[in-house]
């Protein structure tokens, strides 16, 4: 199952990279969402997959039952999801702001900081 998931993650990355290379920065944002999901899934998968048992300890017990899922990647991924959301929200607002200020969504037309033309 891990290996199938690895290939699935590859497809997600490919789609995300293709989106991020687009002229339209909205597509870039879509790519960003997709690639952060792919990254989270990759971390999760690298910690191995254990069907069923969440890393919880029964009331009164001192340790979890044998064969529960690996808790460490879960903790990493959980915060990564929230951070990824923060990044996404900021990028989205930036795109919106760029559009209202510059009047375009095309990255090659956003050249207020580095105007094109022969170097001075």
């Amino acid at each position, binding site marked *: 199952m891990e*290996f*199938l*998931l690895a290939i*699935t*993650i*590859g*497809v*997600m*990355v*490919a*789609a995300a990279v*293709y*989106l991020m*290379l*687009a*002229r339209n*920065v*909205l597509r870039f*944002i*879509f790519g960003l*969402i*997709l690639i952060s*999901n*792919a990254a989270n899934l990759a971390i*999760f998968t690298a910690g*191995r997959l*254990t069907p*069923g048992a*969440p*890393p*919880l*300890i*029964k*009331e009164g017990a*001192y340790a*979890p039952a044998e064969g*529960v*899922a*690996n*808790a460490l990647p*879960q903790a990493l991924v*959980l*915060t990564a999801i*929230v951070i990824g*959301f*923060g990044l*996404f*929200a*900021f990028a*989205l*607002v*930036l*795109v919106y702001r760029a*559009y209202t*200020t510059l009047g375009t969504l095309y*990255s*090659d037309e*956003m050249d207020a900081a*580095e105007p094109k033309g022969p*170097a001075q």
Partner: protein
Amino acid sequence: MAAGHDEAKGNGFVGWLPVLLSAGIFAFFLQFLPQIAAGDTLRVEWAWAPSLGVALSFLVDGLSLTFALLISGIGTFVLLYSNSYLAGHPQYGRFALYLFSFMLSMLGLVLSDNLIGLFVFWELTTLTSYLLIGFDNESPKARRSALQALLLTGAGGLAMLAGLILLGAVGGSFEISQLVPQAEAIKGSGLYVPILILILAGTFTKSAQVPFHFWLPNAMAAPTPVSAFLHSATMVKAGVYLMARLHPVLSGTELWFWTLTIFGAVTAVFTSVLSLRQDDLKQALAYSTLMALGTLTMLLAPSSGYAITAFATFLVVHSLYKAALFLVVGCVDHGTGTRDADLLGGLARFMPFTAFTAALAGLSMAGLPPFIGYIGKELIYANTITAGDAATFVTVMALAANALMFAVAGVVALRPFWGKRGDTPLEPHEAPWPMLAGPMVLALLGLAFGLMPLLAEVNFTTPTVAAILGDAEKAKHLHLWAGVNTELMLSLATFAIGGLLLALYRPVRRFLEAADAATPSFDNGWDNILDALYRAAKWQTGILQSGNLQRYLFTIFATFVVAVGGTLLLKDAVNLGVALDDMNSPRHWPELVLIVAAALVTASSRSRMLAVAALGVQGIAVALIFISFGAPDVAITQLLVETLVVVLVAVAMLSLPFLDERGKNDRRPKDMVLAVLCGVVVSAVLIGVLQGPLDLRLTDFFETTAAPEAFGRNIVNVILVDFRAIDTFGEIAVIVVAALSAYALLRTTDSSRDRDEEEEELS
């Protein structure tokens, strides 16, 4: 220049303190003189970066002590002189600080026994020299000259650093005193040629050998005492010093001999011709300094006793008369307002002490008896006629250079003071005593050493020869009269040719000016090199910094594919056979199919809503994977975030245009290839990771301690809020920052509109 300042006010405490300090340093070094003259050496060491073999170690022997005394002695006089020369200058404190820092760096350079320590001091002299040449920072010429000197000597210094590191690596130590016994091994090593070339690149640029000589005359933009100190008596001799210091380690090969002989001889003759051509006295002295540096380089080529004794003698001779003459020219400038050889004449009546000093120093420079300059010249000839294969070449070159020096000495030291009175901008007046004291003492020393050559021999030349050749017996004696011999004949020939040149000074100079104008100048060549460099920088910046986001991202992803994918291929880290076996356990197919389909739809959709919907589906499918494999916390978070993402995108979309312009297609085959490659590399890396062993030590620790020690039964949450709380704290801080920045972006008014309004208000 002193004009325009309140000279009467002086510089007070700031003016006197460095003079006293440097006099103290001079006295400190003077006390070692008897010990070193007796053949001893002193060495002290402090660890600096022991793991790198870098130490602050200092060695006092004949060579370094001679230099240290010249530096601190001349430094004292120069600081005394500057205090009057720049009396009342508003920035004298800055000047004195630079000059004093230079002196300390130079002392560090000549005393350092560690190659890396030596390099650090070397670069410090370059930096202080830069600051001093550019002291008059409002003059574009001074700034240009300062930068030119910095770039040229800095580039040479970098090459030298590479050479020194190679030398340290081959010799097994960075301590010069420990490299000397390794000399044969180093010379036999395959790295000897690169070491020599790199180190000579540093010494030749620093000591301004042709073709790197042009920075030195330009450096005369510095105030005159600086020229006297740095660009004549001390700093430019750093290159010569290093060649002398490494002489026992690197000399004795054909390559060393011929490189130094040819560069030194060509520099000496070429620049002494240029020296005669100058009408500015300071420029004439600058070019004659180049002649001296060339001669010193040439003298270091062989390993004979004559050569090294001549080197030691000429080193002292030149420092004494050249510093004195520079200071005299400063006095003349100060007293008359000009340094133009054509305007000056008959000054002896108005400036008798200056004229007297100039005469003493000039006679030493011309190499006339009974000055030490004569002894130096005799030794140079004694060396050249015994130079084996090169004897004819170096004798002719030395004769030409010395004859020209004779003429230049006359132009600088005699013509301004005798003959018809010239038409000077200021009424000539004598310089104050602090400005006369230095040059006069230095010039008198030249006479004293000439009359009592034993004094110089015992204290300076023999210990220096002992330091370079390792044997005091090889040192030759200094005589004023050695009988009628070839050297004497050559001296007489020198005087005859020099006298002739001096008599024909005006026509000779006119001829030289015409010849100089007809040949391409090194200075312009430098400008062309710099221009080419700027153009190349602009060109490569244009290529690398295209300002196009797509191109940047493409480069980043392509680099990722090449670097990571290439490594995987080389290391053969992925076993695909095992991966394919895994296909036989078909569980959770639906989620995977859903993810793949949604990702492809997002990538290919031309409709915003469809893309957002597909993204949502993909996110939910990922959440399903999390819940299927025992991660309820992650799954809940993923679902909630996915919901918020869709809400935000939907809100933003209300005021954003469509994805593509009408009638245009977003199909990019090149990007698609790269994207697929990225996906393949990521999959391969992940498969490689999955095939490796899994380290569960951390997980085990968390599992066994969560309940008994952290009183929590949800291990994920315990990791987040207890075990790794400091990480979580960083993460929530990031969230706050991201939200605040986005909030600020939203709430600020349109910046371009603001700017327009501001401009309107201004107008």
